């Protein structure tokens, strides 16, 4: 495991470096600059120039880039340009909300995706099969921004059982926190759950066609047990890879869902940052997302290895 980490570390760092460069570049390529958006709607050019100088935006680009990397290496994130506050605090605050949302969604992805996949692979006919198919298709066909609005309309406005949006830390008030978390997490989880279910269904179908399932059947083991105890463990490793990919999507793709549910997470912060050209916030945030993603990939590979004994021994 240690060697595994060592082997992955250099390429991971390279990814981060490449990402940092791309992020920096993309941000500067976007027209509009932080000083003008900071200056407000009726500012004069002199105000803008003064702000540019104060933010150091008049320095050469390479200097700005290296300066950023240097600050990062020193653990200094500095103040935000436009949103207000320290970047570290901003990211720290929204990171908590995003982690909550992502973990909540991940849990739902598993809770929904698993049965969808298993039922999809084992029930071929009848109302259950139709229901599974209908659910999967709808979820895949209806974009999350529609799902979100519909969920709010149904559960918050019409039924009034769940809040329409906002965030309550689950750590402070678990019961209330869960109520706030449920809809956005569901909205975020649905497409991923459908995708996971799909891959799982595929994997299960393939596993169920394997010879060892024939062996188990010949031994008189019941169908249900074969699916659960024999086929599923074989279908899980590839599903875990898919899940790992989805975590990246959940982390980064939450912009819309966070906007709909007024969830103060990284997605919102990133959108705010881009909309105000708050370079420090966006740069650090995107880099963090890439780093988290790289880490998630690493964890995925470790879990994969743990689930599949064949790899462990090679």
């Amino acid at each position: 495991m240690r060697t595994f980490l060592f082997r992955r570390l250099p390429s991971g760092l390279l990814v981060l470096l490449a990402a940092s460069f791309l992020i920096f570049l993309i941000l500067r390529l976007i027209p509009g600059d932080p000083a003008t958006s900071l200056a407000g709607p009726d500012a004069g050019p002199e105000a803008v120039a003064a702000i540019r100088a104060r933010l150091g935006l008049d320095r050469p680009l390479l200097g700005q880039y290296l300066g950023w990397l240097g600050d990062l290496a020193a653990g200094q994130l500095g103040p935000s340009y436009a949103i207000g506050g320290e970047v570290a605090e901003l990211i720290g605050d929204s990171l908590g909300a995003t982690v909550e949302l992502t973990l909540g969604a991940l849990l739902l992805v598993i809770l929904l995706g698993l049965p969808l996949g298993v039922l999809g692979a084992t029930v071929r006919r009848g109302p259950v099969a139709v229901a599974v198919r209908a659910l999967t298709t709808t979820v895949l066909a209806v974009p999350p921004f529609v799902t979100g609005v519909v969920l709010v309309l149904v559960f918050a406005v019409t039924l009034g059982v769940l809040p329409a949006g906002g965030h309550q830390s689950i750590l402070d008030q678990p019961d209330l926190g869960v109520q706030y978390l449920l809809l956005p997490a569901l909205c975020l989880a649905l497409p991923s759950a459908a995708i996971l279910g799909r891959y799982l269904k595929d994997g299960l179908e393939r596993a169920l066609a394997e010879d060892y399932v024939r062996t188990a059947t010949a031994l008189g083991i019941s169908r249900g047990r074969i699916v659960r105890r024999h086929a599923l463990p074989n279908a899980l490793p590839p599903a875990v890879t898919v899940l790992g990919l989805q975590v990246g999507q959940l982390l980064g793709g939450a912009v819309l869902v966070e906007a709909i549910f007024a969830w103060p997470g990284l997605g919102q912060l990133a959108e705010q940052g881009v909309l105000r050209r708050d370079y420090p916030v966006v740069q650090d945030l995107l880099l963090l997302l890439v780093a988290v993603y790289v880490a998630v990939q690493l964890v995925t590979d470790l879990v994969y290895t743990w689930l599949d004994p064949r790899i462990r021994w090679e």
Partner: protein
Amino acid sequence: MTTLAVGPRRRRLLPAGLHTLRGTTGVLLVGAVVLAGLLAPLLTDADPLAQSGLALAGPSGAHPFGTDDLGRDLFSRVLHGIRTDLLISITAVPVGAVLGCALALLAATSRGADVAVQRVFDLLLAFPGLILALAVTAVLGPGRWPVVIVIALAEIPGFGRQLRAGILVQREREYALAARVGGASRARVLLRHVLPNAVDPLIVQGAIAFSLAVFIEGAMSFLGVGVRPPEPSLGGILSQSMAYLSTHPGYAAAPLLVVTALVLGLTLIAEALNEGIRR
């Protein structure tokens, strides 16, 4: 007597599996949507851009799907929206697929290249898509191209990873070794022998890719960086309709119906092909 063992698959004119009920239904659904898009000018003579004071009207003889918030005929907009989305998908998905496959082939050349390509996929997957969408549109200006680029970029890792996995498996097959022993160069083994056997999963991936494309187009419209208004697009109509979901749910229904039919059709085709391949 020697029996012919049943081969892993049968080749027919149409890909295997599309002859099943599931496959046929899928082809019909997708065909209907595509045809509706292609024949849009014949199916309706309403101008999708013409506005009137009659906003948010319900379905009527003149407006089968009603009108939108600016008094435009929704039926015509949806049909023309299909065209837009088809055009976008038909450019973006193949570009993403080709780039992804090229990277996967590059990965097959050496260990170093493999690690590098894998990290490129990581990078593409890690970069938040919507931020990328905002950035690309801001740089290029609004329109169809940024949407195409964002979708293509999003499709690269999907295709690339699938193909890479396929190549890794196929490369270890004996026929690849046999080709090598027969004197074929590495490149020839990869391109002529391994690649044709590794592309099967991409058919399914391709089908899924089209629904992803419609998704991304919609999300970009939602963020105001989609196709240039007033050009209609399915995602665009859908995102505009959200503001009226509680007061005029019919507005959202038409584009949703089309997207659902398209996705259901593609899913069915993908599944049918999948089964055909596995058989």
